[in-house]
């Protein structure tokens, strides 16, 4: 059995139901430390990451996954940025499912991604952006696949042929691609606000979070702020993730740094420039240097933010708040 067939498609519906049924989905407080929360991620899990590129990335949660030296993870994300480099360099993953992988288009191709993918050390299953979204959606709907009209005819379809079937539509006879459901063991998601029970609200671009949270067996939530359940109930239309999908709530202001959180802070661009330069010049050695200084080195998340530097965080905050300044 290949690594991918373990994750994609073929999960029996009864197994999927049992995975949820066996978890305590009752009304209970779930606030805990970052390290306890990430303790819920098991070696070998399919771990999905919320946000998109360098926006609303649960960076602190991924950072802690690397610090805890998780192994053999299958990682999925719609578009992967520098958090993916850290998981690769940290030896946490053997299998990536994503549509795009590099810090961001303006910084060029990630040498860390190239190092692991070109040698075949890590398997990169490349799906289109919409495919990843529809695969989470199928997972969220409790369905084994989603019919779509993409991936056909391209070499992408050939590359993931073991996990991708076509059919003729039983109504129209048109050719359709059947994207297999993704049901991650755990999803890491960062939001603006959550209560202690896990009801979560986020602002700005919603990305794929709503589907991802329900596709996963459990969600580890980091948030800028923990708010009361009363405040959640005063704006229930803003609640995007229901408490029963959530297994842990961690309060972590600036938990996306050096990536951004919409309306609160932009990316810490000079740090991302620095990281891009380091890995462009030194490749994997640069990433290892970065891990020592910024991942393994810091005492805790606040110390990581200290090492990024206060003045840059203030500049990113000013720039981020401009989104709603007029």
């Amino acid at each position: 059995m290949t690594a991918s067939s373990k994750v994609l498609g073929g999960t029996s519906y009864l197994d999927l139901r049992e995975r949820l049924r066996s978890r305590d989905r009752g009304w209970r407080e779930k606030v805990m430390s970052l390290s306890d929360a990430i303790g819920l991620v098991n070696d070998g899990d399919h771990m999905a990451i919320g946000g998109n590129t360098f926006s609303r990335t649960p960076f602190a949660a991924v950072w802690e996954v690397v610090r805890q030296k998780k192994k053999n993870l299958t990682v999925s994300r719609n578009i992967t940025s520098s958090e993916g480099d850290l998981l690769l360099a940290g030896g946490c993953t053997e299998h990536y499912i994503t549509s795009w992988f590099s810090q961001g288009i303006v910084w060029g191709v990630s040498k860390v991604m190239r190092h692991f993918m070109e040698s075949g050390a890590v398997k990169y299953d490349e799906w289109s952006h919409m495919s990843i979204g529809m695969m989470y959606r199928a997972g969220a709907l409790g369905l084994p696949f989603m019919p779509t009209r993409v991936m056909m005819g391209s070499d992408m379809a050939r590359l993931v042929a073991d996990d991708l079937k076509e059919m003729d539509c039983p109504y129209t006879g048109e050719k359709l691609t059947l994207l297999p459901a993704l049901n991650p063991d755990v999803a890491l998601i960062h939001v603006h606000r959550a209560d202690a029970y896990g009801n979560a609200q986020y602002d700005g671009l919603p990305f794929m979070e709503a589907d991802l949270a329900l596709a996963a067996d459990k969600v580890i939530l980091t948030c800028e702020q923990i708010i009361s359940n009363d405040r959640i109930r005063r704006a229930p239309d803003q609640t995007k993730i229901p408490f029963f999908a959530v297994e842990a709530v961690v309060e972590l202001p600036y938990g996306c740094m050096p990536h951004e959180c919409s309306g609160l802070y932009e990316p810490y661009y000079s740090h991302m420039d620095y990281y891009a330069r380091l890995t462009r010049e030194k490749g994997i050695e640069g990433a290892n240097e970065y891990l020592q200084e910024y991942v393994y080195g810091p005492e805790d998340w606040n110390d990581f933010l200290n090492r990024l530097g206060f003045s840059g965080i203030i500049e990113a905050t000013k720039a981020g708040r401009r989104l709603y300044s007029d």
Partner: protein
Amino acid sequence: MTNSVTKTATKSKRSTAELLSVMSSRLLEDGSILFAGVGIPLLAATLAQRMHAPHLTILFEGGVVGPYIESGKLPPSTNEARTSRMANMVPSSTDVMALLQRGYVDYGFMGGAQVDQYGNLNSSFIGDPASPKIRLPGSGGGNDIASLARMIVAMPHEKKRFVGKVDFVTSPGYLDGGTTRRDAGLITGSMHKVITDLCIMDFDEQTKRMRLEALHPGVEVADVLENTGFEPILPDKLDVTAPPTDEELRILNEIDPDGMYLN
């Protein structure tokens, strides 16, 4: 101190980006709906809005309908908060892609590392995919857009980019030409135009091979042939494009004063 990405570039790289942006922007009609990538597509779409197409609606794959792009505050990706400022709507990334499938999008607009004579785009591998020379970032929404929309592609005209057959079809053009795209199940979408710093090309209706349509001022057919890794179809009559105007260049440089994409 400002919060921005630092970039520098040569003069020629900058003038190529300017030419691609200006020539592409002129194709975008007012009132149309455009699915755009970052880089040249974003610059061209924003320029078109400032020039002749104020009601051109841009869609971004992160999940944005109708963003208002501020001069000097260009988003460094199509998936981050700057794209959502003053937008009409921010659907989920999956739902914004689904608008392509539903048929709301007039044009898709992007670049690629390689394009071939049938308009197939590669943004995944340089060399043999089984043992690549370079693993590129990948499709992102490229495959979705090319599968479902009428495509405009903008790329610098270099022999290594314009190849007979791409190393890997990330985003489908006409596949092997003729009816092969349709036969594969891609019954909508098409390759509309390819914009380069030398010329504009379209595709023959039957064979679906790339065809020279117009040369930019000062460019000869020989320049195009010399920089193309296959023989494009040469029509009997060739148009010549009008050079970028001072106004187009001024506005373009206002939009991207720091050279985030022009450099």
